[in-house]
């Protein structure tokens, strides 16, 4: 205990220098922990946003350069699937439901004179209830045309069942409002209009332009089997389609956000490294200016290990104080940053509502940041402390 109080007094003797080192650790720990919390929050949020998991296969026209990640801008090449290819997919999918999707865009008038260029999705009326849920109204039927509008579109333009809209000059009645779907791996109708396939082909005059086919497998175990079957049937001679399942896509998103988290942690790590160098420097100065004092202590019977302890305690006190303040601060900063980031990521949606920033992951990052701060301080303090302990008493005393 005498050595601990010694360390404390030494730190107080140079309180300003000690304070600066503590601030360095505070910033480092706060950075690493709050950036970790931010990364974790984004990750969790994304996992929340991606609604369907596990049982969906999405088959898109093959794009020579695009790889398989749907988010890659190079995949946005205007390519479509023909009816024959859709039939082939149906056959390959066997008992599972294959849902061909038409996708286009047109100018839409929303009744109050407001117009906008909006995505239009064409689906077989029988497939619509399988794929999409309603918030209000009814599903359209083949002989009873009507449009379904995405929830954000409905909210923005005040649309409800019965409202009238005009798509590319053609009048259409709103049959229902779709429930919020978020970042689905297949289609994102929250800002789109969904119409029956018959109306779509009549309006756009296309029959063969399917954007994708969604296969609802229902059984995770069968996913690979169906993928292989489609691949064998369609990609035998050359790649005609790209096949991705929702697990894979989820994994790809997860990878991206994991990388963001690692990147953020890296930035935090760098600031902690700077703090460590600062502690190393401060401890080094402390040892250098106390060389003769160390010599005196050694001459009156202080052991090497005890000298080591004095200086290690000093570094640890700086580390513990900095990490404690940094931990508290990171809770506040991490919360604020997460709330702001969630605000940006979910602007105009309801996904951010009720999302808890403080969860075990966040607490984990705070603990990790603090442990890292204390560990770094101890490590930075070790070399100067070791040097101090190795000093020969006679030479050290002569240093005065």
């Amino acid at each position, binding site marked *: 205990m005498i050595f601990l109080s010694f360390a404390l007094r030494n730190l107080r003797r140079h309180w300003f220098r000690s304070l600066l080192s503590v601030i360095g650790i505070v910033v480092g720990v706060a950075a690493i922990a709050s950036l970790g919390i931010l990364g974790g929050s984004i990750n969790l949020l994304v996992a929340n946003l991606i609604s369907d998991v596990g049982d969906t296969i999405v088959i898109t026209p093959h794009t020579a350069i695009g790889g398989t990640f749907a988010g890659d801008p190079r995949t946005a090449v205007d390519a479509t699937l023909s009816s024959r290819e859709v039939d082939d997919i149906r056959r390959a999918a066997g008992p599972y439901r294959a849902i061909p999707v038409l996708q286009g865009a047109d100018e839409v008038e929303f009744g109050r004179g407001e117009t906008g260029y909006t995505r239009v999705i064409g689906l077989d009326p029988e497939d619509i209830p399988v794929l999409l849920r309603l918030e209000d109204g009814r599903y359209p039927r083949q002989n009873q045309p009507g449009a379904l509008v995405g929830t954000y579109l409905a909210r923005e333009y005040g649309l409800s069942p019965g409202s009238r809209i005009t798509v590319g000059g053609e009048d259409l009645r709103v049959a229902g409002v779709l429930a919020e779907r978020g970042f689905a791996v297949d289609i994102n109708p929250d800002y789109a209009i969904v119409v029956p396939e018959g109306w779509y082909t009549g309006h756009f005059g296309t029959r063969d332009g399917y954007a994708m086919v969604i296969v609802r497998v229902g059984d995770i175990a069968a996913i690979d089997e169906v993928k292989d079957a489609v691949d064998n049937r369609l990609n035998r001679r050359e790649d005609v389609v790209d096949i991705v399942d929702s697990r894979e896509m989820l994994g790809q998103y997860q990878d991206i956000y994991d990388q963001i988290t690692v990147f953020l942690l890296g930035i935090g790590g760098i600031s902690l490294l700077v703090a460590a160098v600062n502690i190393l420097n401060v401890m080094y100065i402390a040892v250098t200016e106390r060389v*003769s004092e160390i010599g005196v202590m050694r001459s009156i019977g*202080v052991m090497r290990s005890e000298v080591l302890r004095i200086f290690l305690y000093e570094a640890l006190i700086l580390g513990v104080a900095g990490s404690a303040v940094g931990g508290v601060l990171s809770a506040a900063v991490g919360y604020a940053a997460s709330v702001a980031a969630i605000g940006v990521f979910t602007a105009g949606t309801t996904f951010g509502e009720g999302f808890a920033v403080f969860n075990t992951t966040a607490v984990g990052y705070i603990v990790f940041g603090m442990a890292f701060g204390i560990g770094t301080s101890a490590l930075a303090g070790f070399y100067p402390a070791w040097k101090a302990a190795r000093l020969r008493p006679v030479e050290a005393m002569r240093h005065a």
Partner: protein
Amino acid sequence: MSGEPILRFEDVSKVYSLPAGDVVALDHVSLTVEPGEFIAVMGPSGSGKSTLLNMMGCLDVPTTGKIYLSGQEISGMSDDDLTRLRRDHIGFVFQQFNLIPLLSALENVEFPIVLARGREESRQRATEVLAAVHLDDALFSHRPGELSGGEQQRVAIARALANDPDLILCDEPTGNLDTKTGTAIMDLLAAENRRGKTVVMVTHDPRIAAYARRTIRIVDGRLV
């Protein structure tokens, strides 16, 4: 212990290797110090007085030769063993006082006691020793920087006595003090010697050396 000299040097040499060449600080020195002696070590600057004292205090080890402390040969000892020897059997008094600036007078004396025996009764023992060197109670809580040179040297002597050592080694104990204060400090050391402590003191002041009952002269690392 009886009959055993407290210190015995057997043909001890110390050579420092410097870039400019080897410097022989001690050249085949043999001597014995009997318990209860008061010895002055005299010689010009650079003659090897301090090296001799450091060797006596186990602060340095000889290049060749053997040193026995109460019959125990020290050259093969580990750093921890030497440290323990210094802590329990040797008291140092330096010219620069060398008190620890962060600690009060009382704590400076208490420090070696805590190192050797822990906190129990350390305060009481430190108080007794400080009283024995006639330091005013009011100064116990003062830091070294707040004390005069004479007061600091009293604290330093108290620190040297704290663990009741057999041997007190003094390096120019009055070198930084005026004559009157120096005399008072020497009276203290002489009193400790009368109480049975062995005192070895390096000095170049003949008036101070006169307190000793034996004088060792050293020139160019050799005893003369």
